[in-house]
């Protein structure tokens, strides 16, 4: 329970169940969340953020139970779910004015530095590409000076150079502030370079939760092959079940 963030939760929907899982984040952790489409990655992140209530279990921050209302009083988490929640005629300056009022630790200076570093121009959101919107939202997240970041497919729509830049910025922030991040992605090579831990989800179940160094140690194959191996075994098992049924 000495982790920065700890959760032991589950979620049941009529058509889908995210089975109970143990999750922790220590300072400077960079955790990659992967899984096939519909595996439950977004539900996993929504549960941790407090955006949806767990069917069972609790979420802890520095050993204290956190209800969704607690994050409102103590905004140490920052989140991105692939959506820019502002009027599409707003520009980054408008967003800065709004966020400066909402987040007590907001730094406008840092925000414009991040935008500059990520080559985000001061134009309307409507005119931005998907990748630029993602970069804008990363700058918005980091300028809140959070202790924990939850990112859902942050690198989607980014070209390889921009992806490298975004992940480097994220890593630098984590190391500098001793914060932690969990991000979902479909690009496994990103995890190999930047993440310290990997969580693999399949059909609402955590099938792998381990340090990347442990996986790669002694294995001559890449992380990508290891993940494929796990997923194919799981799919094969499901296929067998179906055959028996």
């Amino acid at each position, binding site marked *: 329970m000495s982790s920065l963030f700890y959760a032991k939760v589950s979620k049941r929907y009529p058509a889908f169940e995210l089975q109970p899982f143990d999750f922790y984040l220590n300072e400077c952790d960079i955790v990659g969340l992967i899984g096939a489409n519909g595996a439950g990655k977004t539900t996993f992140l*929504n549960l941790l*953020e*407090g*955006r*949806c*209530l767990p069917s069972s279990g609790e979420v802890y921050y520095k050993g204290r139970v956190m209800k*969704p209302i607690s*994050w*409102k*009083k103590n*905004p140490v*988490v920052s*989140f991105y*779910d692939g*959506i*820019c*929640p*502002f*009027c*599409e*005629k*707003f520009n980054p300056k*408008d967003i800065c*004015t*709004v*966020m*400066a*009022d*909402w*987040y*007590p630790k907001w730094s406008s200076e840092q925000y414009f530095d991040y935008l500059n570093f990520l080559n985000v121009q001061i134009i309307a959101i409507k005119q931005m590409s998907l990748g630029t919107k993602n970069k804008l939202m990363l700058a918005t997240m980091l300028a809140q000076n959070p202790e924990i970041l939850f990112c859902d497919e942050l690198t989607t729509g980014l070209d390889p150079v921009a992806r490298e830049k975004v992940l480097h910025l994220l890593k630098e922030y984590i190391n500098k502030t001793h914060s932690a991040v969990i991000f979902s992605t479909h690009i496994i090579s990103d995890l190999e370079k930047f993440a310290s831990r990997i969580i693999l989800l399949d059909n609402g179940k955590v099938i792998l939760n381990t340090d990347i160094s442990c996986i790669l140690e002694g294995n001559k194959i890449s992380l990508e092959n290891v993940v494929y191996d796990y997923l194919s075994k799981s799919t094969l098992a499901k296929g067998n079940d179906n055959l028996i049924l």
Partner: protein
Amino acid sequence: MKGLLYKDFKSILKLISPVYLMSLIPIIVYIGKDMFLFMFSIIIGILFGMQVSITISVDEKTKLVNYYRILPLSYHVIAMEKYIFTLIISLLTGIIIFLVTFSYSGQLSLLYPFIGFYVALIYNMIVIPASFYFGVEKGRYILIGFTILPIIITKFNNVLLKLYSILQTNLIALAVILHLIIFVISYVISVKSIEKYRI
């Protein structure tokens, strides 16, 4: 609160569309007639009042409503901002109507500005909780339901006239109390509806 007000003002300023010119058509029809100032006040009151539901609609469209649970703002602040925004919009409506009334008739009348102010205010007392509870699209049906109210009231003319003769000494005080009750009910429904927003 300031951030929310800034967001809403900026949104409606950026979403002003030439379609609003359509509202001038019924106003033009009444120019020169006795009913002009009355119709002008009603139309401008509704047009300005509608801007609040437009901001809720923008929040829905941009999915900001999905963030209500995790934004560092209490549910009360999120709801109260819409009512403060309504008050500002209603005052603005009153000022505009006052200026038009003065230019049109040369009189410093407060009746028409009050009508515009009141229409914008009462419109939103119904629309805000309905939009938060049902969503902006479905919330409009509730407003249609309220248009039946005057028809129902006319069925009870005799009772209302009797009530009026009993209450007329304290009519203003009663009106204030009644509106405060409407505000409290509207506000409580809005806060409870916002609390329920979740994925």
